[in-house]
């Protein structure tokens, strides 16, 4: 009661594009509003490969979860999960281990609500509203503590979300905090927008980046060195390092897919 009342409800504004709904549309999902579709169409017009980047990123998520599942990880904390319609972590993880546990975290209340209805009836998958910039709150959330056992390995997924965290919000400190919560054998999975490899591509990418500046979630493009710095000393980045999503342990089937240098990814093991 001591702090002042903040009676402005946390915002759902369907007149402003939302990163998670835009991403859903980019993947071909149906859980989005017109404003999100318009936004994505303009982004794709500015940066024609954008759809492929999104798909490569999503495909990486699936491979990473399978890779982790194969190494015995059965607990996942997916921060910035968006709308879990296509290729969900819990589907992939529970296919490998039916009792795999997943907590989804998203900042968008609609995405959270949406997830809640999609997850109804799944005892090992939950969703909470949370902000990656406040990891403490996520890690101490009763639902998180209820479902995940932090004395055993947990994989924290920050897929296509750290590029929404500006340097001023201290992405390195956030990752460090998350790492401290993990037991040995825990992992960090991340993907992040990286610079295109051609000047023309970078110019197009810059146009698209400027579009995001007019949304509540501007993006920051970081190169592999910067991403490595964010991962920090708490983790050891596993092979093949910080690479394009299409190059991270690709399925032989996907080897022919066009490389996506702007979707940088890494999986790191808790030291």
């Amino acid at each position, binding site marked *: 009661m001591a702090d002042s009342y903040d009676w402005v409800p946390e915002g759902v504004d369907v007149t402003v594009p939302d990163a998670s709904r835009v991403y859903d549309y980019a993947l071909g999902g149906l859980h989005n509003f017109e404003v999100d579709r318009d936004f994505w169409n303009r982004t794709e017009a500015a940066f024609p490969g954008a759809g492929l980047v999104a*798909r490569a990123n999503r495909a990486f998520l699936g491979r990473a979860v399978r890779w982790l599942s194969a190494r015995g990880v059965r607990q996942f904390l997916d921060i910035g999960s968006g709308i879990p319609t296509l290729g969900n972590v819990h589907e992939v993880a529970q296919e490998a281990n039916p009792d795999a546990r997943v907590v989804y975290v998203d900042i968008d209340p609609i995405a959270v609500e949406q997830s809640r209805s999609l997850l109804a009836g799944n005892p090992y998958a939950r969703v909470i509203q949370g902000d990656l910039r406040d990891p403490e709150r996520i890690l101490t959330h009763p639902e998180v503590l209820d479902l995940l056992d932090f004395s055993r390995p947990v994989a924290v997924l920050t897929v296509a979300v750290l590029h929404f965290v500006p340097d001023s919000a201290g992405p390195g400190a956030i990752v460090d905090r998350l790492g401290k919560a993990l037991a040995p054998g825990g992992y960090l999975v991340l993907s992040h927008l990286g610079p295109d490899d051609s000047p023309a591509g970078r110019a197009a990418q810059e146009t698209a980046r400027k579009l995001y500046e007019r949304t509540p979630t501007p993006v920051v493009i970081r190169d592999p060195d910067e991403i490595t710095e964010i991962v920090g000393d708490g983790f050891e980045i596993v092979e093949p390092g910080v690479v394009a999503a299409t190059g991270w342990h690709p399925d032989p089937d996907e080897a022919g897919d066009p490389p996506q240098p702007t979707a940088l990814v890494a999986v790191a093991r808790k030291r």
Partner: protein
Amino acid sequence: MSDEALSELVEHWLRGVVEAGFVPGVRARARAALRDLLDELVAAVRAEPFDSAPGYRIGVELVDLRMAAPAVAGVTVRLFAGALPALLGGSSDGGEVRERVLLLLDRLVTGFTTAQRAAAVGAAEQMNRSEKIHWRRVQTDLQQRLQEALLHEVRTGLPNRQFLCKNLGERIAAAAPGDRLGVCLLSVDGVAELTDALGHDNGDRLLAGVAWRLRQVATAGGWFLAHLGDDEFALVVAGAGGPDEVVKAAASARVALSPPFPIDGYSFSVGVTAGVVDGPLAGTHPEGWLRDAHLALAWARQDRREHAVFEAVRAEADRSRHRLAAAMPAALAKGEFVPHYQPLYRLRDHAIVGVEALARWQRPDGLPALAPQQFISLAERTGLIRPLGRSLLEQACRQGAAWRKDGHDLLVSVNLSPLQLGEPGLAAEVADILHRTGLPAHRLQLEITESAAVDEHRDRLRELAALGLRLAVDDFGTGYASLAVLSRLPVTGLKVAGELVADLDTASPAASAILRHTIELCHDLGIEVTAEGLETSSRERLVSDLGCDLGQGYLFARPAPPSEITARLG
């Protein structure tokens, strides 16, 4: 048709589908699923009799496999329309295979778009529902927070008056016969002064400090604590065994609040006054508890005590006084206040030389008439004494003038309240009344109570004396020892209080010596002395011996309506 050819076709199909949109899961699984669908399609082409329905199912299946990007339909139709007829039979059947493939693909597109539409509508509904649920949650949260805010004092975060009433209401509803409750209302003195002197911030800081200490007290005692606003707090003592237990709660609060509060560099001390009420719980009303506690608090303040315990009898007396006070203005307007008169006897010869007008409230509807001691102090408290005094003065003057017309030249003595004495226009008002009633000024005596006001309004008294009327100090011997005042003020009469006269009965030599000297002093100053409250002839003899000039009391006559006085005058 070779299996390799079909596999190759599936490979083409998969590439097209993956290029069209994101396909979750591993490619191998997508490939296997597409192979199944193709086998189904081939079987349908060959089936006898031919049925195009499988085409529809395959379209739906594609969407279910989340190969739902719009381009998937185009990719599929283009691929199969081009390659399947040749693969399945070439031109040998006169175009029958081609016809069947096209019919199946037509149905496939319908199935695909129908399923896609269903998925889109379902998703839209889901989004809509999610948004609604979200907003409902936001609303509920807001409502909860609003409720919280409505039930708590903003400055201290403690339950407020509404919360307290709710809490009391719940206790009352759940009370078993014999359950008791105690409420201790605490008034913290000094908060308003601090706020005035050092600002609201510091006032709030003090309140927060007070609340913090009271919280500890309440927690330790297991009592419910509420902050009713400003400097009032309440402790609810459940199952109190009697008022003593509630008084103890007040005492613990006082102890907790006694160390000074460091505020803005000052060390600030507060006092606590408590109103205590306890009693059976069942069948009561929350507001009743607060009202009684407030009344007890008011008594504590009035009596200048640390606390007071609510008593029904005193409360009833208070209430009837309030009812009386409320009825007075209308009664005055209806002329229910009339003077009765008590004769003033000259002790030397027992002649009636004057009357004292005494107010009387003649109530309608068979209610008993009330004597002045039952309502004058009330009228002084409400301020009604001003118009009431004026009305009585006018009535008495008019009566005096009437007697005078009938040949009875009586001194009319009327009481003047200290409040009336404070009115700047008093002398002019009295002059006006004398003028209108026709009573000569020297036949009017105004009795003023011996009090601080007498000295305070010396100028006013001089104005009145200047009118030529007489001024008497009333109730001498009960208040201030103001013999000195007699010499400073234009006083012409002194009325010795009945109590002082009664003291003479006890044969107290001191009392009679004081009285004797007072009377001598008065006579030296030309002041006439009246003995009030004469009830026995022995007392009359005593005061007569001491030199009193006039006497008044039941020995001679009780106050009576004017007609009785007229009869007595003969």
